[in-house]
């Protein structure tokens, strides 16, 4: 959900530690508190996850849960006008670990994808691991858990 412009309400991102847990939960739906101020003065309120295939419709129950969680951390959000709600697809793998490495049977195709909701968090490690693998160096991070060959 994105709100109307409310400059000053929130100066930096606030995310609950449980977000990592939420991002790796196998279940029908999960929510975690995560608010981010935008350069426009609007506030982005997240987040939710649902395993519903390609259905992009908004689940109002999950939306309500997500917002109750957000308001429990930042009560002032309750009075802020909401402008829009939407959903999007999260790139995920069956075992919730990203694919980082060479694609099986295509020795010139390298892949770094499927980080779900933690792409930016894992960006630096992903970059280092992929560089090591491409350059043929001994990787500083064990590549086995992320090998695209595992599925």
């Amino acid at each position, binding site marked *: 959900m994105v709100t109307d412009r409310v400059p000053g309400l929130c100066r930096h991102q606030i995310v609950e530690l449980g977000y990592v847990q939420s991002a790796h939960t196998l279940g029908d739906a999960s929510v975690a508190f995560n608010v981010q101020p935008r350069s426009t003065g609007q506030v982005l309120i997240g987040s939710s996850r649902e395993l519903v295939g390609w259905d992009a419709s908004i689940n109002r129950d999950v939306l309500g849960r997500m917002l109750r969680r957000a*308001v429990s951390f930042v009560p002032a959000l309750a009075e*802020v006008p909401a402008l*829009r709600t939407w959903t999007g697809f999260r790139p995920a793998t069956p075992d919730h670990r990203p694919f980082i490495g060479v694609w099986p049977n295509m020795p010139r195709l390298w892949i770094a994808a499927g980080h779900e909701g933690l792409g930016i968090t894992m960006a630096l490690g992903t970059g280092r691991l992929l560089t090591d693998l491409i350059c043929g160096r001994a990787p500083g991070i064990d590549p086995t858990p992320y090998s695209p060959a595992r599925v």
Partner: protein
Amino acid sequence: MIDGALCGMGVCFQCEPRRACMERVPSSSNIDDEADVIVVGAGPAGIAAAVHAAEAGRRVVVLDSAQRAGGQIWRHRDRRTLPRMARRWLERFDRSGARLVPGAEVVDAASFRGRTVVLATGARERYLPFPGWTLPGVMGIGGAQALLKNGLGSFRGRRVVLAGSGPLMLTVAAALARAGARIVLVAEQASAGRMARFACGLWRTPSRALDAIAYRSTFVGAPYRLGTWVTRAEPSAAGLAVTLSDGRRAVCDILCTGYGLVPSTELARLAGCDTRDGAVIVDERQATSVSGIFCAGEPTGIAGVEAALVEGAIAGSAAAGVTPSPPLVIDRAFAGRMDEAFALRPEVRALADAETIVCRCEGVPYGALDSAWSARQAKLYTRIGMGPCQGRVCGPIMECLRGWPPDTPRPPLFPTPVRAFL
């Protein structure tokens, strides 16, 4: 006068404070009602639907963002000021047992699932951008009328130019003149030839011909120029300086502009109803493509109050599971002649220059759309349509100027406090 008012009906969010044009800002909450039929909108179509469903014995609840039933066309503070037909319908509505929830804004369609709903969400004004259309003092034609009806604007002694298209201009010019405004001129973009053909057709509906003459006589003295449109407005020491397509200039305090009506289909589209050419598709029972959802009046295509009343009656009866007797027939011939008479000429779609603002909420100039090829893509690049009006003003502009159909509406349809979702 309310600062920045454009639409006068709570959709453009340009007033300061926002939606100051409304008597009271509507609230949003969950429908917790035992009603058999939910009617959204208490204009002519909604009233007719509610009356027919209630008279068939159904429990009916009617939701409207305004404080009183009537919609835009029958907006009033004192019922005695309304035409007799409007008074008769409102009295029948009072007696019908249908329950009106005033000040209620429907911002989502999720709660419609499994219920019987009649969407009678009406229409709003179409604005076309020209250099200067965002200046203070420029407002909608219907916007000025709405402010006048709600007693929220004082036009006494104001010099007013009306420039745009459609029969509403004459009605509003007459009303403004009665309220003490000085009508400087009325510029209708439709050509004299088209208007003459239209006027000749009015003998088929003599009451309308008489209306037109009565309106015209109220502001005798003000020129009514056909085939003329405003090309630019600039601030000047004497007031708002308006340049017209024939090269003439006029100075005024208020410039009213508008190019006919646009069906309000956001709620129907959010509910999943199919549309064609900007109107909701309905069958002969006014049923939409979504089971249980009916639609009546302007959202199915601009056709005026008489057609809206008939469509509402059919929709209300169908929602109640009964057949209206005698069978009702919708007269769309008049609407067809209106469309032809007031068809927009290409020149009025080409008045904006690269610097002209097309999205007033987000301040997007027309030139920023140059590299875009769809409404969605323009939105991603420029933020057009992402402001509080949710594209209600700029959506029809993009459609009219670039031929882009509007992007999918997303809930809430109007800015709504987060607490309404908890």
